[in-house]
């Protein structure tokens, strides 16, 4: 593939998320399943993704709030593991993700004779979010500038371009989409960014990881160029 003569700069955007209560809650697994059938997909989005932008500690063990609650509050470690491994990117849309959640919980309900309950003050509260997306004055003129710009971006900017993007473009994020616009030139970098596991790290760490991947790519290329010279 030919490299395009000109590729527009990458426009850095940012977002702010408001969390909203839905009034729905669950105190045991049956209630969790029942509520899952009725909540909006915005709620599924929030509990898988949006919660990473809402004030709460990013639990490193369980990447979604369903798995964390089942583990911590229902003490059902087996189900916690099954829910924790769900990769939301395996599903074309949030409706598919909802069905998978319900399916796994149904299976667990069939396996167990006693339904575990959480303490009354430790119920699962279904929430949903609204996202305000806005432009920033920042741009990235060329891929080689990414290593310098990425560490200066806000956590929410990283969230928008690297995580939220996957809900807008299946199997891709905004950075890789932009790099692909350069044709074959940065396919190695596209591949390297594609291997970054975004589940287990806080956003600040994810930002560092992305910058490291880009730096490693360009220092490798620089080394190759020096070697060829």
């Amino acid at each position, binding site marked *: 593939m030919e490299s395009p003569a000109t590729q527009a700069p990458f426009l850095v955007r940012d977002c702010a998320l408001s*969390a909203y*209560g839905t009034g729905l809650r669950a105190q045991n697994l049956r209630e969790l399943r029942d509520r899952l059938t009725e909540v909006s997909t915005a709620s599924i989005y929030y509990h898988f993704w949006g919660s990473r932008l809402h*004030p709460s500690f990013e639990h490193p063990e369980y990447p979604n709030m369903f798995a964390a609650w089942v583990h911590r509050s229902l003490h059902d470690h087996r189900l916690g593991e099954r829910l924790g491994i769900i990769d939301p990117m395996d599903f074309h849309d949030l409706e598919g993700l909802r069905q998978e959640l319900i399916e796994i919980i149904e299976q667990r309900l069939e396996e167990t004779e006693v339904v575990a309950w959480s303490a009354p003050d430790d119920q699962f509260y279904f929430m949903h979010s*609204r996202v*305000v*997306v806005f432009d920033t004055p920042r741009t990235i003129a060329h891929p080689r500038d990414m290593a310098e710009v990425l560490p200066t*971006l806000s956590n929410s900017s990283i969230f928008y371009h690297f995580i939220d993007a996957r809900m807008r473009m299946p199997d891709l994020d905004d950075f890789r989409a932009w790099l692909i616009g350069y044709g074959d030139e940065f396919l190695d970098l596209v591949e390297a960014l594609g291997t970054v596991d975004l589940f287990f790290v806080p956003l600040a760490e994810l930002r560092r990881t992305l910058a490291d991947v880009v730096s490693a790519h360009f220092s490798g290329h620089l080394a190759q160029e020096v070697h060829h010279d």
Partner: protein
Amino acid sequence: MTEGTLTQTVIEEYQRIVGSDVIEQLFQLAEPLKGLRVVHVNSTRVGGGVAEILTKLVPLSNALGIDTSWEVITGRDEFYQCTKSFHNALQGNHVAIPKALLKAYEEVNAANAEVLRSTLQDADIVFIHDPQPAPLITHFPERKGKWIWRCHIDAGKPYRPVWKYLRNFTSRYDASIFSIASFAQPMPNPICLIPPSIDPLSDKNMDLSEAEIETVCLQHGIDRQRRTILQVSRFDRFKDPLGVIEAYRLAKRFAHDLQLVLAGGSADDDPEGAAVLTEVYAAAAEDPDIHILMLPADANRVINALQRAADIVIQKSLREGFGLTVTEALWKGKPVIGGNTGGIRLQVINHHTGFLVDTPEGAAYRIRYLFHYRDQLKEMGLKGREFVRENFLLTRHLRDHLALIHALRSGGSERIELHRVNLPGTGE
């Protein structure tokens, strides 16, 4: 100092703490809201968490170019008696409120509505804080802007008759704000969840010199060469001060130099508080290593110094609202051993920012654990500070308000896209 310089100073001070990306983000969110008139209304200018937040939130909002003001309603004794009862009832206490007090409550709001009419009628956004000014909305049927009711109280299990009465007012708002999901009641309007915040520049949270910390410790007989655990809270059964003393005793068997500081306010106006304090003195039994400090309400710098002097902060509550004392301790780089309840669960994460415990034995075990693994104690402290920096500072609080205003102004869509249009000075 000119207004412009003052604005610049406020912004620079916050930027130094939270980073330029956070401040930049606030400016970008505020840009499309310039020209809006935002008004906050509560019932006191000083004292209490709401006044503490508004004291800094309002100037910061103005510094971003949003015309923000703060109005305070005033009332007579019966009004305050009534609203004090509301406060207790929303937290679940069965409180019967005489009709005469409810009448005074409504009359005071009607009178304040007339005083504030010109300010509130045309405001674009009105934040009404807590139940005290909630009925104001009924006096503005022709209001121009969006009105938001902000409940700072844990209303998760209210005394139903009182909530039923208050709902006549709160249900009329365009949106409600609660601190966390479990504090909220079902409402006919959108329920936004915005946790409270601390101000890193306030007396209670600002950096202090070692000399000042040393002086405060000297004044209160605390030996800085020895290990110190601290609980800051009023003397209330829900804060479990007796459980803290028991935990201290259990831990002291393995840490002979350990000292405990229990710092709280005067209980003069609270008969139950006075009884708890008597029990605390009895349990301390003249142990010279237990320091029971009765501090005045404005002893913010002293509390700040005590938190910084402690090795570990305890908040062993049996029932808790959000638990801002936990946030304050984490901000000072201290791991927190907290009761497994309320908002403490949001902030204290086992092995990351501290430990959640259910018993004095659990607290004692974790005190010993942290003193044994000093490197973990230090690491958790660092993690806690970063956690607060990202999630619980005033700048995040303001960002949440701005996002909510955008959401209210844009109707019901889940995703609101704002595009820059030739911002001045950007060269676009």
